[in-house]
């Protein structure tokens, strides 16, 4: 039993949501690389095909002793949202006390009373960052860097599975070499955004 709890504590379930074309698959590739380097088993589910054409996309990703690729409603440790609308729509995946990391572009939405109550009742830790704004300011509005920015934010928040040195190493290995400098720069911006 003691063994089981020890195992359980390592298990992590992630939901990553966004809009087709935002590069959310890259985030699970980084997560996967890190888990494999640690020798942890992974299973997840990706969206390919029609929804990649600008529709709502969702990746399920589980690290630890799991079999099925899908995260059950109410069981995710983390919901990472490239788009706040998609994040809020999928917030029921998050377990009580889970972390909601979200790229925001319209703060007013979070003033909704029902949403505020849901977040408070479920003791959800909300971490917002203004991804588009940051990329406008530092990367000439190249929003393709959003996936690296969110990785930085996750690392900055010390979300398990996104250890800073390991994400940086994974970026070096998985991203095209010519973009390494920009990627590391954006990664740094993400870390800073999280602590801001």
């Amino acid at each position, binding site marked *: 039993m003691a063994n089981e709890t020890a195992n359980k504590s390592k298990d992590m379930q992630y939901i990553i949501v966004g809009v087709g074309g935002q590069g959310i698959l890259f985030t699970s590739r980084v997560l*996967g690389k890190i888990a494999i380097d640690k020798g942890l088993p992974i299973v997840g589910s990706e969206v390919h095909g029609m929804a990649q054409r600008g529709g709502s996309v969702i990746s399920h990703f589980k690290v630890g002793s799991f079999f*099925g690729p899908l995260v059950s409603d109410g069981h995710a440790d983390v919901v990472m949202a490239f788009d706040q*609308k998609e994040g809020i729509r999928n917030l029921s995946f998050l377990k009580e006390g889970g972390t909601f990391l979200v790229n925001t572009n319209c703060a007013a939405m979070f003033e909704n009373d029902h949403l505020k109550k849901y977040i408070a009742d479920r003791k959800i830790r909300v971490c917002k960052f203004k991804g588009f704004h940051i990329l406008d300011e530092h990367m000439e509005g190249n929003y393709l860097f959003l996936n690296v920015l969110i990785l930085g934010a996750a690392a900055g928040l010390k979300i398990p599975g996104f250890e800073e040195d390991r994400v940086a190493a994974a970026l070096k290995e998985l991203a095209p070499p010519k973009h390494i400098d920009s990627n590391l720069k954006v990664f740094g911006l993400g870390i800073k955004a999280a602590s801001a």
Partner: protein
Amino acid sequence: MPVKAMLLGNEAIAGAVVASGCQVATAYPGTPSSEILPAIAAVADRLNAPTVVEWGANEKVALEMAIGASFTGARACAVMKQVGLNVAADAFMTVALYRLKGGLLLISSDDPGPHSSQNEQDSRMFAMFAKVPVLDPSDAVEAALMVKDAFAISEKYSVLTMLRTTTRVAHCRQDIEQVETFEKGNEVKFERDLSRWVSLPAIVRVSHPLHNERIEKIRSEFETEWGKYNYEIPSKTKAKLGVIVSGVCFSTLKDLMKQWCRDDISILRIGTPYPLPHKITESFLARHDKVLVLEEPYPVIETQLMNRSKVDGRWNGVVPSAGELLPELIEKIVLSEIGVEAKKPDASELKSAIEELGLTARKPQLCAGCPHRSSFFIIKKALPNAISPSDIGCYSLAINQKGVDSSLCMGASVTMASGYYLAHKETGQERAVVATLGDSTFFHMGVPGLISAVYNRHAFVLCVLDNSITAMTGGQSNPGLTGKPRKDDLGVALPIESVVRGCGVTFVETVKAYDTASGMDAIKRAWEYAKTNKTPSVLIFKHPCMLLRVPQEKISVTVDNDKCVGCRYCIDNFGCPGLSFDESAKKVSVDKRYCVSCGVCAVVCPQKAIHKVAK
């Protein structure tokens, strides 16, 4: 030690195909199967394996290429999505009875949900119909194991064997050992043998009973020797509820069982749904008072059970007969079978928030800068009253801008245009018909319909939306291009114009998809020609798909706030994600998160509020 990598289910399958010594691998793309063939090529390139890897023009072509290879002794494999099997069905149903030479594996990918398909058909049902043995993996690791075993069964019994995957297996990610070696292929030697290689009735009268015998042999092998795929958890017990489960539902159920820690449920996992290992299922049924069957998407195992009096499943509505069996649904069904209510956190506040904020799932849409959007705008503008049968490809997303009136299956744009024409002709009405289909679909199944329309004198306009790629499925090559899956392998690109002329079409023109003025003129002329000469005329709209990232002129646009009257014309009839509508201000603006500066929308606004920005 082999290195573990995070592989897609389809990549794991591909590794196993090469490792099994497959000599000829063919496919036509289709979600969720599309990544298998390119991954076979990538593994073969990495290991320097001799495997020949090719796209067929359609699934029938792909399967028949593999069948031919098998007749010579080569180990072969054909890959397609479930509806692709319909296209290949003629070959499939008959080759099922053949005594093959080289191992022949058919991989067919189903899409419960559906997520990216025009129906939810079950390839296992098709396998049962054709009397073809089928393996049904529950995850990526097992899918790879089953590839090897499927080849083994195929060679042992000289029989076509199917591996059936579903979206959640095909597109799952798992840590999997990468293959480092591959088996040697078979000797290739074609030997004449009319008792084997032809399908005359006299031969079928012999081969069909023989096939039935070998299916029974395979069934008893599944009953006794395939414990790795057909097994009980816990073994040989009797619990309050027995669950017979296959495919990804089994993985889901295992996670749930761990969560619940219950001992009143026992599981029979079936990995070989046809021929069903009756002895195993009957023994499980005999021991239990109540048995639930969980499988996706059709009741294939359930239908084969001898007696369903104790069985809950699709036949009595306990399991829904459409849609995907998601974890929440499986939890609800299984728990309610044992009289327990599934606990769900109260999400009513979240529901209200989502409603108040008006959050709905974003529909898939054509990319910003997509040439199809421009082509549809041209067609609608030139002939607003035309009926617009379309086809299966990215352009089916033009329903968003009312560019598509109907779609059915690949190639049906052309043939249904004929139907629309004929019905109106019969009643003496005249109505323009403009059909649209993509380059890949043209080669796949557009050609026979076009030939038929020329022969029968059908007046309509066919627009081939040539974006130099098979886009919807992720960007594969097709016969209009030179690309082939293996490195350094080049094909011959067939010019669509020549093929169209070869079909007997006398009006063929190619226009630039972004050139709205020339396009509109061409459409009008094409319809006049078709009408006057009672023949289909063809226009080819050309511009590369945005996925290809071909450098193109950047033409920035801006919206003049004073001129924009908030009529939504551009949003409703053009619908580029690069244009956004502010509901409160009732104004359109360029959303630079998405705009790729193609410049096309500058002609769209009736008030001329959208301008090109001078450089």
